[in-house]
């Protein structure tokens, strides 16, 4: 069935009003609701089912982490950084450590870099699985959530074996990784990759061909590539609209240049394409992990950094490709052991601005789908 608007515009009695014009209904999707990705409040202006306007009210999870940074030392701030995007804590850690290492002008040894890549890509897999489960649940299919979480558990077990924590890992230190790969790390990661590849196909089987899924996601939340750039959107949302940009390829960091992987691009910029982009990204992540495991060199995993980290005065901006988009850290140092300013460029915060554009003119039932497809984490939006 072709996707066409389900109402025909009525002839207008006076400009802008037809005889059936109803008053606009203001609906509040409050900070607490079931299809939540955090505490996000959306105020919808509805005309029947059609969304006329939308306003996001955020700040419910604002913890002032950037302010906290100014009262801790560089090293002490490391664990705080995980709490931004708590579903993919390892990439936050990576971004912060890369930024500080840039200021310190310290080079992480190759083994440390490869290990970082493996853990970051595992974290990308975990984050995308969480996204998949919750997004599909919002649209109504209750089963893939359990499959996705079952597979996410295997990845979280690896994190637990590596650093002791499943969710907010504090995996990396300034200068490299705190621990080397534990015994059996390689085998376990290989097993996870081998198990996960057919599982991704299983998700695709269960969801992609489903005609109800296609009807709910094709044409929903459409945004063009130019609009994405105007809204400063990055990440799978941008790639789903056809713009080929991935920080890992454009400005390779942490030896991503050594690995061969593709960047999936969507065509139509709707929810269905973003879903396919993220699925393909999961496959590419497995590819990267396999290459990194094969090529894991010997050597130390952490560089020699002084006990008290005092980067020389200056500033640097370092960006990585987090699962949600471009995660950037702008660090300003005044030569002391405490950061002068840590600014986090939050991909979810910037991507969320596009919610209004994407949901306007659509139906109320699609707002939930669009919030899911933007893949926001309120920890990052509010910091």
């Amino acid at each position, binding site marked *: 069935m072709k996707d066409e608007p389900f109402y025909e515009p009525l002839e207008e009695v006076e400009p802008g009003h037809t005889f059936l014009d109803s008053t606009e*209904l203001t*609906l509040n*999707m409050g900070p607490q609701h079931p299809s939540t990705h955090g505490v996000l409040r959306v105020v919808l202006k509805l005309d029947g*089912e059609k969304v006329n306007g939308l306003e996001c009210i955020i700040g419910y999870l604002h913890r002032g982490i950037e302010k906290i940074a100014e009262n801790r030392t560089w090293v002490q701030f490391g664990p705080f950084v995980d709490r931004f995007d708590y579903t993919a804590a390892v990439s936050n850690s990576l971004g912060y450590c890369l930024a500080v290492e840039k200021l310190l002008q310290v080079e992480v040894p190759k083994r440390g870099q490869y290990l970082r890549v493996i853990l970051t890509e595992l974290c990308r897999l975990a984050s995308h699985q969480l996204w998949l489960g919750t997004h599909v649940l919002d649209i109504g*299919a*209750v089963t893939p959530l359990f499959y996705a979480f079952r597979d996410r558990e295997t990845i979280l077990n690896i994190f637990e074996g590596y650093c002791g924590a499943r969710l907010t890992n504090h995996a990396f230190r300034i200068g490299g990784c705190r621990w080397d790969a534990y015994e059996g790390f390689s085998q376990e990661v290989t097993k996870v990759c081998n198990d996960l590849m057919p599982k991704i196909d299983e998700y695709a089987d269960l969801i992609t061909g489903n005609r109800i899924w296609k009807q709910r996601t094709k044409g929903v939340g459409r945004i063009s590539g130019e609009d994405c750039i105007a809204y400063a959107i990055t990440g799978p949302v941008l790639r789903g609209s056809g713009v080929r940009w991935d920080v890992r390829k454009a400005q390779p960091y942490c030896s991503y240049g050594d690995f061969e992987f593709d960047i999936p691009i969507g065509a139509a910029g709707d929810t269905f394409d973003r879903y396919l982009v993220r699925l393909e990204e999961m496959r590419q992540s497995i590819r990267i992990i396999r290459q990194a495991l094969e090529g894991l060199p010997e050597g130390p995993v952490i560089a020699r950094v002084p006990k008290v980290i005092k980067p020389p005065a200056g500033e640097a901006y370092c960006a990585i490709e987090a699962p949600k988009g471009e995660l950037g850290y702008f660090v300003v140092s005044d030569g002391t052991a405490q950061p002068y300013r840590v600014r986090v460029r939050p991909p979810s915060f910037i991507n969320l601005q596009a919610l209004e554009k994407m949901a306007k003119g659509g139906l109320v039932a699609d707002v939930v789908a669009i919030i899911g497809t933007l893949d926001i984490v309120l920890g990052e939006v509010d910091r």
Partner: protein
Amino acid sequence: MIQSFLSYLHSNVTPGEAGSLPWVVIYVLLVFLGISVGVIFMNWFERKVMAHMQVRLGPMRVGPMGLLQPVADAIKLLLKEDLAPTGADKLVFWFAPIWVVMTAFCSFIVVPFGRTHAITDMNIGVLFMLGVSSLGVLGVIMAGWASNSAYPLLGSLRSGAQMVSYEIAMGMSVISAIMMTSMATGTGTLSMIGIVQAQLQQHRWFVFSFFPLGLIAMGVFSIAMVAETNRAPFDLPEAESELVAGFMTEYSGFRWSLFFLAEYTAMFGVSSIATTLWLGGWLRPFPNLLAGPNWELAFSLVPGLSVIVLGALCLFRYTRMPRIREMRPEAVGLAVFGAMLGLLGLVQLLPGVRERVQDIFWFTLKVFFFMYLYVWYRTTFPRYRFDQLMKIGWKVLLPISIGVVIATALIAVRQELFALVWR
């Protein structure tokens, strides 16, 4: 008087037809009890099947294999605080759940579990069932209205609109099945028992007649019945509680459980219609082909044997349970349950009982086939958006069902048509 009471047992009609009031009362109580047990079982069944499809176990703790979970839920709901929103219309608020339960149960007056196992048999049986289940829509709208809040009202109107739209497709497919009843005798019947007897006479379940028309009609009906009962994938009005609350929002505790009861009863009701119309009602497989006293005996042993097999499974699981002290209540419960099932099965094997029970068994089995489909749909499919839902009801199912009606009619009178055309 005892004589007249017992004389019913020798008749071969339903109590309503026989005019025997005491037996009618007994049958009403039996049906009520049966449906309630069925709903309780469905609660457990749904949770277990959904869980297993979702790679998890479902209720395991409350009773052996979670069998007492529905009982625990029922007790919890009964003990909950009875809230009513301020400013709500008290009378309507109180009455709405009662109304839906009443209409859902009333439609079971004509459902035949066997030749004599129905409360009564009206000669407008199917029409009565469809009509009474349509009255349930009124209860839904009353519930939304009485909640004194914009969002339940909108949700209930949506729900009501959905139910009404799909009733039309249901009705059309029912018409095509009714037309098939007139094939052998030349006169059709709307009576539920008559429909099954027509299938018996025509040696064919209606789902297989005029292949594939019967199949399409049953398919349309089974999709429409899922939408009629507001179940996945058509459960947007009740699952979209984030945005527009469903009509059940303001109900809590016992009132909510009445809605729940009504929903599952309605599911049983429409599944019974589908079973009676297309799957041959209470008929055992191959009643005409495999006729004869030996076959009768063999088939009449099936209910008892299947219950005994279930009991044996329970006992087998009991032997596999870990023998530690903490698990003893569960293990004992499972063993007792298995023993009870075994005993029930043995009772069903007794000669006097097994003829009576056989029809009920086959009917229940077919109804549970539809119930399993319901649960399967819920686990697998995402939800349809409301406009897509209405589009399917009006633009897809209705034309298909009208087409099936026309095609069935043409084929039914094909001899007369040919005679007309080739004259």
